[in-house]
């Protein structure tokens, strides 16, 4: 019989890293280099403050620096740069990158792609952006064959549809002057748990990282990234635009917070099949995922994010209200204690049905409350797909994200 102390001693003996101080510096070089690279190259370091933090910072007055203070600050920055250079073992220190860089034309990743051109449109099919088990997740990219870039970069997620990509939307937008990526993000065997815990959206976010890394090769400027999706595709698009992605497993991280979010038929947060069972069982991760979507304090958006939001009167996925909703399924979702009141404010309970439009109006209210500009289009039709009129409006919005 093994006793506890012996078991613990045996466990200590198999510690793969008994002494962290003895780790070879060469083994850590990759980590040090990557941290140095990310901190110096990722402008989002300063942009991705939460909305709450931003308000706090704006509340702090910034006195005009005196010449002596300016000298001290400059001297301090120089010292820090030297210290950082010594620390990271590089000639260059941690150059602050507070401002959005000018148009980016240098590819982050250089890969040779097989481009197919047909008339005014060129495309590359099936570029891998992540893997899930044995399955490679891929994206196609469509871009103008002619004309002058740099073009905005758009990543458009199809509705939840296994193996589908939004290639039709991608072609239409690319022909208007954009580099458009259409990733396959919904694959088979995705559990409801993966959905509500956000793992699915994290994987989908890898497509944005890949798009930003390769877009300059097709004339795209990743600095002007717009994410787009409707129905189920709204979730990964919003996930990235809100800076919620946890992309440690992505081959390429999201380097530039999107400046535009185009979503339709959002947000499906009150859907019975997708979410209810997790809330009934008080799944803390599911609640956290919902909170990330709904709570602006959790968002890490670009300062200049703007949103185009559309919804129609489509009735297919609406929820009948029975009067006990506020104490029941809604209460289980209400992490901030304001959900019911906010839904009331946007008229969600007026007609006995929780429409997708009610989701959209809640999203609009919270975006506006966070100071994010929103363009809306509430359509009385029952369309579930993009109309020509919507494409025109969306393109006007995208073209304005400069």
């Amino acid at each position: 019989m093994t006793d506890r102390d012996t078991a613990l001693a045996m466990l200590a003996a198999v510690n793969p890293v008994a002494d962290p101080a003895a780790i070879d510096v060469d083994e850590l070089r990759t980590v040090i280099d990557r941290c140095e690279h990310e901190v110096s190259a990722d402008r989002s370091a300063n942009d991705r403050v939460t909305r709450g933090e931003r308000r706090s910072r704006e509340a702090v007055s910034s006195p005009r620096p005196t010449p002596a203070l300016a000298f001290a600050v400059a001297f301090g920055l120089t010292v820090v740069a030297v210290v950082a250079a010594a620390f990271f073992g590089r000639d260059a220190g941690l150059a602050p990158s507070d401002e959005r860089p000018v148009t980016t034309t240098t590819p982050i990743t250089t890969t040779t792609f097989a481009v197919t051109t047909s008339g005014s449109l060129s495309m590359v099919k099936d570029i891998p952006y992540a893997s899930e088990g044995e399955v490679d997740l891929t994206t196609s990219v469509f871009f103008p064959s002619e004309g002058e870039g740099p073009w905005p970069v758009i990543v458009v997620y199809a509705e939840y549809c296994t193996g589908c990509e939004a290639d039709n939307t991608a072609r239409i937008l690319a022909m208007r002057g954009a580099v458009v990526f259409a990733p396959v993000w919904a694959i088979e065997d995705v559990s409801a748990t993966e959905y509500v815990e956000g793992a699915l959206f994290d994987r989908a976010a890898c497509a944005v990282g890949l798009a930003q890394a390769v877009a300059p090769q097709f004339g795209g400027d990743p600095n002007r990234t717009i994410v787009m999706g409707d129905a189920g595709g709204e979730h990964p698009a919003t996930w990235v635009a809100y800076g919620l992605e946890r992309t440690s497993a992505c081959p390429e991280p999201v380097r530039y917070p999107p400046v535009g979010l185009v979503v339709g038929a959002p947000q499906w947060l009150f859907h019975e099949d997708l979410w209810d069972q997790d809330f009934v069982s008080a799944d803390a991760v599911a609640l956290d995922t919902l909170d990330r979507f709904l709570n602006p304090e959790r968002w890490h958006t670009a300062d200049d994010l703007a949103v185009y939001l559309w919804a129609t009167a489509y009735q297919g996925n609406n929820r009948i209200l029975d009067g006990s909703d506020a104490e029941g399924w809604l209460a289980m979702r209400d992490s901030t204690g304001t959900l019911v009141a906010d839904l009331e404010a946007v008229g969600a309970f007026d007609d006995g049905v929780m429409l997708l439009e009610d989701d959209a109006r809640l999203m609009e209210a919270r975006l506006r409350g966070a100071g994010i500009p929103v363009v809306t289009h509430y359509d009385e039709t029952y369309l579930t797909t993009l109309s020509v009129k919507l494409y025109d409006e969306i393109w006007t919005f995208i073209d304005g994200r400069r």
Partner: protein
Amino acid sequence: MVLSTTETRERYRRLFADHHRAIYAYFRRRIEVESAQDCTAETFLIAWRRIDDVPDGGELRWLYITARNVLRNVYRSKRRSFTVPGIDRDVADCGETPEVVLLRHEEEAAVRAALEHLRPDDREVLLLSVWEELPRDDIAAILGCSPHAVSQRLHRASGRLAKELDRVTTTPINRVVPTRVEELP
């Protein structure tokens, strides 16, 4: 408190210098080298982006909590479970005969198998205590429970580890039931 850019970078520099080896070791004890490097970089990138959230005096706890979340995502995204990475050590330690080396390898294999069969919450509390050598207050903060609960969990988990060791050492290693695919608690 709102820090200037200079102060923020200086704080981050200190955070990295003080703790990157501990966080790398945390990952290295749980996943292979390349993933450990990726995860460590990811953890410190998160720390950089959210430097204002990192509490003064509680930096290491915050980093461990973040590292744990990063690891959870790796397990989840790769649909993999916990396995003990190989131990980097010279096979021929001074003075060890081949028989001693063989016995040591068998013992290590038994501990690994026992560890991989523990429930995730048992395993985590044991590893934070024995491998990371963290005090119970820190473990409590990382796991989100009280120090008293940590003591109880450690007591139960060490007992279960002892039982598992007995089980795997009386069962041929290659007959041990494969580990369930599971996530961190």
